């Protein structure tokens, strides 16, 4: 049950990009094309999983007063590992990510999950939290990248679809507009689902109550006969 909760939190209920509005720098800067979104998302996912596991394993050993420097130290180490791996095996992506790759160290999502989840939960759950938070972030960045690439470059994952393009969507203001529209859409859909679920929850006890009332009336009628 907890796994389902963690998955839903990471992907939807506490989606780091559209719900918590964290990690906005790479979200705005790197989503000009979809592949950048996937690359950045997977890099953050790797760092999230590794740092969450290590923070969780060391949660009883790290004194409370130095927990933030310790978390930053752990996160920075894993970001360096990602940076080395990308430079070695994906030099193009490494080049594209540029300054945003080392900036993962100060990404609020990673520090927030280490502080609020990993330092209070077992390593397995912390790893799952990192995985689903990372997937939520990757999904959001990829969606934004797809929309901006189609509208701004007339392409889909590098494949040219048509010659029509609105260059505004490849620019910084276009990134802000796309992000705002996604947040609005996500909030609208999420609120409507929440309202429906709430409505269902309210109706259920009433239905049970009316059923029991029906049963009582029937019993009374039966006795009277």
């Amino acid at each position, binding site marked *: 049950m907890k796994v389902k909760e963690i998955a839903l939190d990471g992907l939807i209920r506490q989606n780091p990009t559209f719900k918590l509005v964290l990690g906005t720098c790479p979200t705005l800067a790197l989503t000009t094309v979809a592949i950048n979104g996937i690359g950045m998302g997977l890099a953050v996912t790797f760092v999230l999983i590794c740092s969450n596991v290590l923070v969780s394993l060391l949660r009883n050993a790290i*004194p409370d007063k*130095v927990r933030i420097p310790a978390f930053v130290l*752990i996160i920075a180490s894993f970001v360096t*590992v990602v940076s080395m*791996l990308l430079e070695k095996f994906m030099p193009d992506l490494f080049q594209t990510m540029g300054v945003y790759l080392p900036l993962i160290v100060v990404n609020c999502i990673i520090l927030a999950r280490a502080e609020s989840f990993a330092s209070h939960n077992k390593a397995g759950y912390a790893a799952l939290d990192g995985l689903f938070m990372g997937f939520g972030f990757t999904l959001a960045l990829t969606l934004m990248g797809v929309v901006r690439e189609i509208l701004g470059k007339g392409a889909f994952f590098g494949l040219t679809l048509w010659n029509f393009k609105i260059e505004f969507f490849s620019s910084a203001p276009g990134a802000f507009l796309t992000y705002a529209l996604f947040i609005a859409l996500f909030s609208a859909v999420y609120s409507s689902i929440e309202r429906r679920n709430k409505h269902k929850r309210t109706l259920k006890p009433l239905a049970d109550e009316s059923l029991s009332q029906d049963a009582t009336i029937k019993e009374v009628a039966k006795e009277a006969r």
Partner: protein
Amino acid sequence: MSKEPNQVVFNDETQEVRGNRRTAIKSVVVLVLIAVILGGLLAILNDALFISDEERIANTIKTFYDNEEKSYRKVNVLKQNRENIFGSIDNVYLIEDGNYLLKTTGYHGYKDGTVTLWLLAEFKNDSFNGFIKIRMESYVGQTLMSNFNDSFYQMYIDRDITQGYFSVDTDDINRIVVSGTTKTSVAINNAVNSAYYFINTVLEV
């Protein structure tokens, strides 16, 4: 009698100080241990994932030739030809198809920093035809480097080389990149001109 309460306070303080000292020592020890362990891990990975100069050149060639591998040989550049008024010539390679791959550094960027570029110079019938690929390798002291995308470098590729040395157009910079990057674009322009100067004067084509 009056000294007794003071004595108790003194003991409490001593205990508190001792407790604080213990926590401080533990904090430092834990931080140092984490740093040492993770530092060791990074040292091992740094060795395992080391990228040699040959690998970097091969990667650049693969990027420029759409993942195609090409053989190349290093061109020996004399010391007096390594620097010019625009910047420096770091390395020159002759590719099997007759094109030259140049790594150049442009001077006079933002805060007197530099920008290093990889340029692929196309040669047809032994004459210079223009730059066909440009990629940024590294930079020093430039804060807005990430704003320079392919569109900016494309200007150098599209331009007719018979017009002479390249110059920076502030309007183009503001339109393609972002306002405030003029100094950085000067360094990029100098890196391109440095390669152009080398081709014209040293390779003499």
